[in-house]
């Protein structure tokens, strides 16, 4: 079904929070899913996969141990593309200084790609990422994709190498509408549902502050 990007962002934020991410990381998940969806990737499916994989586990286990390490790796030997991606965006200046940032054992690597967009906008130069069978580059506004479908759907990338500045070729423009599979939407909705307080008659009256007749 066709969804607006705002709907995708709102659902993704709630789902991320429902899966145990902090609000700030849930916001990153939402912007990233929106970004992927705008470029025609199945962002909601990837996010649902990741949230199911890491459901309610401590974020520190799937976070980089250190941002100064030669190669970023996580204690669980499985790094969250959202947390690593958010850190990459936070380290945009370091990326340009170092030239590359390499990560090990990143789950669902495509989910880390939107964060390059943030870094590219901050730096004002394109940023690229490579993993086995895939190279993507973005200046934050357009995306270049050279990858096999299998690589884009990879469950895990052994090595993920980000670099800046990067070359852009074969640009893809974002679209402002996304097709979302019902199945992935329902999976995200199940996570989102955890963030809603069950309605009670008391909250209906007190919480919303109504109660006066509005039939006048």
């Amino acid at each position, binding site marked *: *079904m*066709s*969804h*607006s*990007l*705002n*709907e995708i962002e709102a659902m993704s934020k709630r789902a991320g929070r429902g899966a145990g*991410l*902090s*609000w*700030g*990381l849930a*916001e*990153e998940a939402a*912007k990233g899913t929106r970004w992927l969806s705008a470029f025609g990737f199945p962002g909601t499916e990837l996010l649902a996969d990741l949230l199911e994989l890491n459901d309610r586990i401590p*974020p*520190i286990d799937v*976070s*980089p141990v250190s*941002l100064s390490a030669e190669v970023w790796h996580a204690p669980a030997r499985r790094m969250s593309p959202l*947390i690593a991606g*958010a*850190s990459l*965006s*936070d*380290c*945009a*200046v*370091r990326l340009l200084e170092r030239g590359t940032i390499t990560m090990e054992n990143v789950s669902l690597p495509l989910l880390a790609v939107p964060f390059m967009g*943030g*870094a590219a*906008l*901050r730096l004002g130069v394109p940023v690229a990422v490579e993993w086995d069978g895939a190279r993507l580059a973005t200046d*934050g506004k357009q995306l270049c994709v050279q990858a096999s479908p299998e690589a884009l759907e990879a469950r895990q990338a052994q090595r993920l190498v980000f670099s800046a500045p990067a070359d852009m070729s074969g640009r893809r423009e974002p679209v*402002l*509408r996304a097709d979302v599979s019902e199945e992935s939407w329902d999976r995200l909705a199940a996570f989102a*549902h955890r*963030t*809603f*307080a*069950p*309605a009670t008659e*008391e*909250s*209906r009256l*007190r*919480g*919303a*502050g*109504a*109660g*006066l007749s*509005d*039939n*006048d």
Partner: protein
Amino acid sequence: MTKVSCRDPNLVMRLARLGSIHQSRLSFMRILTRRMAREGWRFEQTAFEIDASGVGHAVYTAHGPDRSYSLIAFAHDLPADKRSDRVIAEAWDATFTLFDGIPTSQDISRLSQNIPLQEAGRVSGTELSVSRANRSVRLWEHVVSSLASGKQPSADQIDAVGYLMRTTAVYGSGKLGAADREMIADRPEFHAPFQVEMLSVYLTRWFVTDLVQYMANTRAAEAGNAAAQLDANLARSMGIGNSTGLGMAPFLLNHPVLFNNWVAAREQAIQAVRQVERATDEDIALFKQLLERSKQTIATWHSEHPIQIEKLSALRADVVLVTSYLAQANLGATHPWDALYRWAEDTLSLEGQEWIASLILEPYGALVDDMSSGMAADNTATFRIAGAMSIGDLRALLADVYTWAIETNWTAPENKARAWYVSEEKLEPRLGERFEEPIEEYEQPLAPGRDAAALFNALAHWPDEAQVSDFLLRHPEHRHVLRRAQIVGRAPYAEIRDNTISDRVLPIDMLRCKLAFFGATKFDPRSDRWVRICMYGNAPLPLELTQDNADFWVYPDQEEAKA
């Protein structure tokens, strides 16, 4: 030359003041009517297929210079027991969508299956908004029965209510599958915020005027009579009501950059006018004329809520003070508006201060109207965290922006008595009692003061030269509020500098602020978290709109007010 600064965010961004803001030249309704008049928009009713019971649809199209937009209205026959202004309602007197262009019969057929369902329906990228409205039962019946019996309705009864229908939600920007704002933001007519929603309501008012006449004609015809034609002045005096609850309150917190841009535009306008060295005789005359007309609005502003009754009584006392000030002040002297504003700040209630702050902008359209071009926001650039910022700089930023929060005792129950959460029902935002209801685990991040103070404390043992990126890796729980703090560092009016979860918080302050930027008047709180207002009261109807009446309609015409 006197240098006047913009007002300090620590003064402006307190809830009590935000909850006292008045509409101004920069309000979104007035931006829209000015544009449509300036560009000579053409309006037409292209369908009105409604049966004798009031069920059917109508289409109203507005033609701008490059594009056309159509309000598709569905009229329903709603039993009284189904009429509720609450978001949890499932049926309405009328439902609407603003369509991008001119709808085909297939579009109307598709939308007739979805728009009447509101949240339970789906729309597409050709729909720009989804909304619904209920009748004011009292006024609707009075107007229909009066006209049907060949008489005009009573002006007093119309004034007492102000509108025939009130909207209970106007959804835009991607809700329910509608077009995202990004799809239309580059169109000049939608550059300023909420222009889609304002256009939708403006056309809704026209439809409602037609529908009430049609229902009166139908009733008269059944009795073998002819109905009276609703007097144009009476028709114009009616706006569209709006009943707004908590759903709107988190908006200002969830869109900090946008909120900053609204407030900053108004503050820059106030600053620019306060810097005017000499007012011309025409400027002074216009100000005085609009002040008198504005007094009519204040005089006829009713509320039964104790908080607003008190504020209105203070405002009416302010009106007397302003009148005597102006009787002796010399507005021909240098910097008259700065002098007036300073006097107001020292003398009047917050309602009175903000009334004057908005009113002094009126003679200066040429100076301030372009400031509306800065009121929209693209969040892309501000969303990213600057991870290279040092902890020392972050600490200083927090100490500057969140002074009040850092000084607040957050262990005292009264300072965090409330919690914002989202209910399962239609995802309605609610405000609950943290210590009395099982809601804390569902709490939304709508208490930036508390969260900023917690961040400040968490930084205590970090060295100044450490970087934000390393702190966030260890503390993802502070990522949300750290982002906010960095935004406020660049956009000083982005943050409500007040406690949004204390036992004294009044959510209506947030609602009032947002609705004042829309251009609403006569705020009538129904509780501490629910307010009714009127939109477009006294505005020219579309077919009457000209450059002469597109701007100052919000101030009642004195002749009319006396009648």
